[in-house]
């Protein structure tokens, strides 16, 4: 009896440990194994990744997936894109309903336009000059602010956009706000 209880306790402890090990992790699902293996070669060394089998309920034809840290999603997406790999999807392992925030809000403040996406904000004047970037908490946000402030949003080259300069989820949401601000200026 005591032995059974001990086993039960051990099992519970292991499940908790397993759950904790998935915290903050995500999974990249590919169309085929070849892409998954190519992606592993590209990402290993640069990011903390692991090749795993996807859970049965989200299996989409390929029996290999890559586990990664959610915070690195943006940089990983760019790295794969540069190398011509298009994964089927990126999902959070702690809850499949979690997804990057894309809701955008726009407001006018003293004649300037403030565009907010999630925790990130970009402010432009009527001519499209970026006057301020605020919010967020990842280290690439102050870097992006220094790089983008003072530039006109219509003249920023593709390689200088938040998408191409940033690495984290904060950069991802800033890019969404940036795209909307550019759209508003071009209207």
């Amino acid at each position, binding site marked *: 009896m005591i032995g059974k209880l001990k086993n039960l306790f051990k099992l519970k402890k292991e499940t908790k440990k397993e759950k904790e090990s998935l915290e*903050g992790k995500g999974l990249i699902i590919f169309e085929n194994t070849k892409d998954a293996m190519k992606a592993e070669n590209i990402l290993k060394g640069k990011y903390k990744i692991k090749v795993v089998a996807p859970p049965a309920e989200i299996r989409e034809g390929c029996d290999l997936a890559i586990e990664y840290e959610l915070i690195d999603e943006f940089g990983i997406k760019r790295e794969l894109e540069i190398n011509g790999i298009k994964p089927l999807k990126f999902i959070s392992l702690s809850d499949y309903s979690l997804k990057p925030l894309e809701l955008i809000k726009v407001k006018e403040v003293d004649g300037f336009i403030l565009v907010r996406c999630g925790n990130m904000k970009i402010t432009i004047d009527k001519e499209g000059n970026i006057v301020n970037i605020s*919010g967020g*908490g990842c280290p690439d946000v*102050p870097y992006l602010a220094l790089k983008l402030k003072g530039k006109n949003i219509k003249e920023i080259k593709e390689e200088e956009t938040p998408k191409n300069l940033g690495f*984290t989820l904060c950069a991802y949401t800033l890019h969404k706000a940036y795209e909307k601000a550019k759209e508003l200026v071009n209207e």
Partner: protein
Amino acid sequence: MIIAGTMPIKGLDLVIGKATLKGDKIIINNKEFPVSMGTGALIGAVLKTLEYFGEKDVKIITAGDIGEGDGSLKIYNALKEIDDDLLIIHYIKPKISKIKEIDFSPKIIADAGGMYAAKAANIGDKFYLFLPDVGELAFLADEKATHPAYVRGFISEIDDKEVPKLIERAYKLKMPKYMVVKGETDYIVKEGEITNTIKEPKIEAMECIGGTGDTLTGIISSLISVGFNAEEAMSLGCKINRKLGEVANAKPNTQVIEIISTIPKALEMTLKQIKQ
């Protein structure tokens, strides 16, 4: 007081030393850093606030990081042993495994990436104070989320009116003793209860200016370090930070250095108003 946070400089190695302010630059170990949003704005605000009280004792632990995580990692490792009783963790790449390894003996104030890491690791109760905005509060209230940008659908629609509900929800999880929720109204929270709200002066442009959240964290942390109790420091800090916008006549294109330079004046005015 120790401030730990990254600087947006690629490849900059770990720098540990005392900071001083020279014009619009911070000097640490003869190296110059910009007072832009993030750790720079926080340090600038701390130095200006301490200057008012005749103090200058602040140690910085920083490293360069543009989002790749290299500098953050060096900072996490430097935080395994701390020789002060007040630590502020600021712009740092969230790493669940690394935040769990830091020295928890000081009072720890976490903002920005430091707060994201603490919440994602579900160890918020080991911290002293968090300073989220409304969006970040929604992230704190979501037991599944590990980053404010990676959340469930219900978070997307939040607005300022839902703050009390979100505070209640957040405190069902592991949260610090104190919290300041900054926004149109600032909420002062102690152990899940709202103990004060600050609404005036209302300067809308402050939301646009990158670094005004960092200045708030800097002012409150400095007030705590010079002896104010946490609740006084939080309320007073919110009032002073709002006053900065008024004194600087802030517009959406105002830069944070202009805001920081008005700290002694705004502090003086706010303290005087309170005494009256």
